[in-house]
């Protein structure tokens, strides 16, 4: 460990200590209020159960959205990178380009409202499913761009080498380009997942219950907004921290990047 490293480390640790001691003093000073507030937020009226249920919905919507997004993104890239030029492919390609520009050109919030109140106006009691669908459609547009970037990031020489070795275009894509493309695109997929998790906080607008909505409800009913909003923030932060750690781990161990 060099001298500057050690210095950085000491400063970091002492900063953490200061923050910790500060929080401790704050907790001790206002112990009773904090306990009261904690009870109102977490213990009364099934607080914890409701929060967990909200958390579950947040997960369903973001994970479901990502999976749907990956499927849509993959399909779009297959369509766009295929060499065949018959009329159906042209129609599909045009359709994809419209889809991409519409979903990347409007806010997710607007898409959610339109999908829920207009397109799926006839569906009853399926708010979480509709939200998942909206998030999947939105994410599909972004994932498809991420994957395209991944494919384009593989040097052109690789394709040429594959072709000159006697592989067909499709074989070269499948066996040489795609494996490298996935590896390149993986970190961005992780980022997409994290932004999906954070964006789920808007689905309360269509009546679905997720983490933000539950904490808003609790804050309004109990007036304990400090405790409710801070815990909500910490929870999101922890989730994102864990997810990004898992993605890094996966990258290192499985993809060996």
């Amino acid at each position, binding site marked *: 460990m060099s001298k500057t490293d050690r210095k950085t480390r000491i400063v970091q640790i002492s900063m953490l200590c200061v923050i910790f001691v500060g929080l401790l003093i704050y907790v001790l000073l206002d112990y009773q209020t904090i306990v009261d507030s904690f009870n109102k937020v977490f213990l009364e009226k099934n607080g914890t159960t409701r929060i967990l249920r909200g958390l579950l919905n947040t997960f369903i919507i973001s994970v479901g959205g990502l999976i749907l997004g990956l499927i849509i993104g993959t399909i779009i890239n297959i369509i766009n990178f295929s060499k065949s030029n018959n009329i159906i492919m042209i129609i599909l390609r045009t359709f994809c380009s419209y889809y991409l520009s519409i979903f990347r050109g409007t806010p997710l919030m607007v898409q959610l409202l339109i999908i829920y*109140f207009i397109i799926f106006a006839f*569906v009853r009691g399926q708010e979480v499913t509709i939200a998942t669908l909206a998030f999947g459609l939105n994410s599909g547009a972004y994932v498809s761009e991420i994957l395209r970037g991944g494919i384009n990031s593989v040097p052109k020489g690789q394709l040429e080498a594959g072709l000159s070795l006697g592989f067909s275009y499709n074989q070269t894509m499948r066996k040489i380009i795609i494996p490298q493309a996935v590896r390149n695109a993986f970190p961005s997929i992780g980022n997409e997942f994290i932004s999906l998790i954070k964006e789920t906080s808007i689905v309360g607008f269509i*009546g679905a219950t997720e983490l933000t909505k539950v904490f808003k409800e609790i804050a309004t009913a109990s007036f304990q907004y400090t405790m409710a909003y801070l815990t909500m923030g910490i929870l999101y932060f922890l989730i994102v921290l864990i997810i990004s750690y898992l993605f890094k781990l996966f990258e290192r161990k499985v993809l060996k990047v």
Partner: protein
Amino acid sequence: MKKFIVSLFFGCLLFAISSCSKARTLDDIKADGKLIVSTNAEFPPFEYKDGDELTGFDIDLIKMYGEYIGVEVEINNVDFDGALLNVSSNKADLVIAAVTKNAEREKSLSFSNGYFLASQVVIVKKGSGINGNNIEEILQSLSDNNAVIAAQAGTVGEYYAKGDSDWGFEVIPNTTCQTYDNGAQAVLALNNGQVDAVIIDQLPAIALSESYADLEILGTTLTEEEYAIGVAKGNTSLVDSLNEFLVAIEENGQLETLLEKYFGE
């Protein structure tokens, strides 16, 4: 350096604790010349937007109060739950948004005397099979139909639909409650068939369902409640002044005129 960081941190902490803003008394407001009001202008006829203009019974009432104590009125239009929290976090001096006064809310806010008698009603689709001639029958019918009930977030309707012991509302078996940010969205979801019923205050129910031919309001009212103006807990000078004002406009007939203007009765 370390000492500097430590002292800076504690300085910030002390500042954060001490600057937890205090509710402004009547004198503070008069000295400032401005009364900050928070409301949720999605609740016709009490508060709504007429074009760009905020208007409604509550808005007129609070402007009258502004004149009464001789200050300018600044109105912040936010979500209903935000409107309540704005007052308890002292971002606004008072909330006037057809807020029902009750013991549960009085733990966190102080209220003026009531200025309007109100009640909750149920809006349903015509021929939906949800009906009843009294509260028990309506609740039974909601339960029999496994109804999805919509309400505006943070309002009495939500607590009624979910069942809330602090409000004295029992859980309605076999029903679920879904909340929206405003009453209009809840009514839209009802008209779409995405929910089966909406529980909301009576006059907004009439105003919001007017434009939908397929909706009807059940005749029985579910609750008896009173709207009041909410201020930060313990801000007695402001409560006293509001109560004085409410008595004064009742005596000089201004309240009567205002009621007639909006409700014509």
